[in-house]
């Protein structure tokens, strides 16, 4: 798909009519470092309908990753509520939140975060260890996920034997293997060259358009953001549809 075609799909508001998947309301996030208190997010509201591909941009320290962590149940807000798929996740216990993440969220990291001692297939199988699937079924699903990301020829390769792009594709396969409703990508192309980055973006876009995955992607890269259906800018804890001056 061409970049022009990508850009033409961009909107600044959520698509009307789609079912709401993520509802963030009045969220404050305060970090305390020693005697210093840092307000990262203040009174933030964000609604993301199901099937959206949202790009979150903003300068370093603006709170993009913090917001992503709150939506993904990796962190809790100091104030406000985070509801995903109708579930108030900020009220869940650590134990229930871990289970919720395993069922509903796929995570893609900037530096892939693969286990170096496991093969690509075993890495992709990891989230399935938290399910009731048999070993045979886990293996089958992991192979299918790797096939979707175009790595069926690299099943038994270890991360050190894969290129950066291949490692990130393995990371994406791990994120989608449980068929989650929400994919959270933190700078997924930040560690890749342009060609590999484009391949990853193609893949994410396909997962959004063909499989209806809801994706939130944090990025510094305008070219990556252009692939999303909506881009929001975060600065000083506030969201806007345009970069702030």
């Amino acid at each position, binding site marked *: 798909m061409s970049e022009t075609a990508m850009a033409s799909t961009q909107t600044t508001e959520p698509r009307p009519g789609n079912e709401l998947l993520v509802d963030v309301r009045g969220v404050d996030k305060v970090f305390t470092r020693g005697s210093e208190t840092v307000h990262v997010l203040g009174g933030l509201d964000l609604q993301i309908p199901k099937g959206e591909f949202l790009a979150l941009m903003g300068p370093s320290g603006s709170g993009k990753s913090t917001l992503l962590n709150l939506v993904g149940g*990796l962190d809790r807000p100091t104030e406000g509520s985070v509801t995903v798929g109708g579930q108030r996740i900020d009220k869940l216990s650590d134990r229930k939140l*871990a289970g919720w993440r*395993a069922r509903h969220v796929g995570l893609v*990291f900037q530096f892939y*975060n693969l286990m*170096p001692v*496991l093969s690509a297939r075993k890495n992709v199988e990891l989230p399935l*260890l938290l399910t009731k699937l048999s070993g045979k079924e886990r293996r089958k699903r992991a192979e299918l996920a790797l096939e979707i990301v175009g790595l069926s020829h690299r099943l038994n390769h270890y991360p050190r034997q894969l290129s950066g792009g291949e490692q990130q594709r393995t990371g994406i396969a791990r994120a989608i293997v449980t068929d989650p409703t929400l994919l959270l990508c933190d700078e997924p192309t930040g560690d890749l060259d342009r060609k590999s980055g484009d391949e990853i973006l193609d893949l994410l876009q396909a997962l959004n358009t063909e499989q209806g995955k809801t994706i939130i992607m944090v990025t510094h890269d305008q070219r990556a953001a252009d692939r999303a259906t909506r881009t929001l800018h975060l600065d000083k804890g506030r969201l806007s549809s345009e970069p702030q001056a």
Partner: protein
Amino acid sequence: MFRIINQVFQVTRFSLASLPQRKGSSLSAMVGIAGVVVVMVGVLSIAQGIMATMKSSAGEANVIVMRSGADTEMTSGLGGDEARLVTEAPGIARQDGQPVASRELFVIINLPMRSTGTDANVPVRGVEPQAALVREGFRLVDGRMFTAGLNEVIVGVGARQEFSGAETGSTLAVGSEQWPVVGVFEAGGGLSESEVWVDAPVLQDAFRRGNSFQSVHATLERPEAFQDFKDALTSDPRMNVKVQTEAEYYEGQSRLIYQLVTGLGTLIALIMGLGAIFGALNTMYTAVASRTREIATLRALGFRSGPVIASVLSESLLLALLGGIIGAALAWLAFDGFRAATLNFSSFSSMTFAFEVNTPLLVQGIVFALFIGFFGGLFPAIRAARTPVAHALREL
């Protein structure tokens, strides 16, 4: 439940698989723990060796009779007639019409240690010919038995090893005289092997003891005869004696030194163990720090704290187990059977013994290593499980 076990197993599996990436710190923790086990097993094997020596000194049906109120042969005294009456008491085994009993006296002389050249107290025991029958396992391994009435001596194998001049063909300075050594004997690994034996009347004369003895060692017809034997002696108005089985006597003799060595060994092991715990803590904190990315990723994917704690603990326990096994093996190779001498506090004379590294001691050493590994891994494991996931991911 099965899923949790499977999670624990899988997380532990790749935690252990990543051990080679941390081989430096892992090896240092392992060596530290091995060192603790070597010292602990080594010191405790002294106590085990002393206990084994004392136990093997006691024949199953053997008894010792001393003056009433005496705790050791050193503080005992029996007149010649009194000692003769003891040997004639009912229940004592007989061989060729003679009671298997030996009236004995006990003195201490000084001999230089082979290892240091310094003088040590050496027990010299005056015995009757039946003494060789009373001591189980008595056997001459060199030379011949002393001749009754002559100032000849035989020495135990332990004494020969520890003291200069205690070998067949040489002489021992006893008072102003030189007594020839005519033989060397074994006595089943017992305390007698630390002693020098001489004919009882010769020792009585040399040390002006008249016709007095300090103890009677005897073998009963059967162990069950002990109570009748004891009753017969203690109810006889002509005698004022204390009757014990040799097992009771030697247990009492070894209690003090056993407790002292065991207490000292345990104290040393605990102090070193504390150091090793800090070593293991350091290693495991380093391991957890170097695995921050892995652990945070697993928890982000939905793995709970349990498997994470289990994986860190299992790594620590594995290192401790390997360290423990290495330490136990080294201790066994270095110490088992090693002969040494120490002061027998009951007789204030030297006793020789062999360090005994037995299976319970090896198990004890390995269990102690696991204890170090558990506490060395517990706090890093809790830290790994408690660090907020988002915070841990930011630290990458």
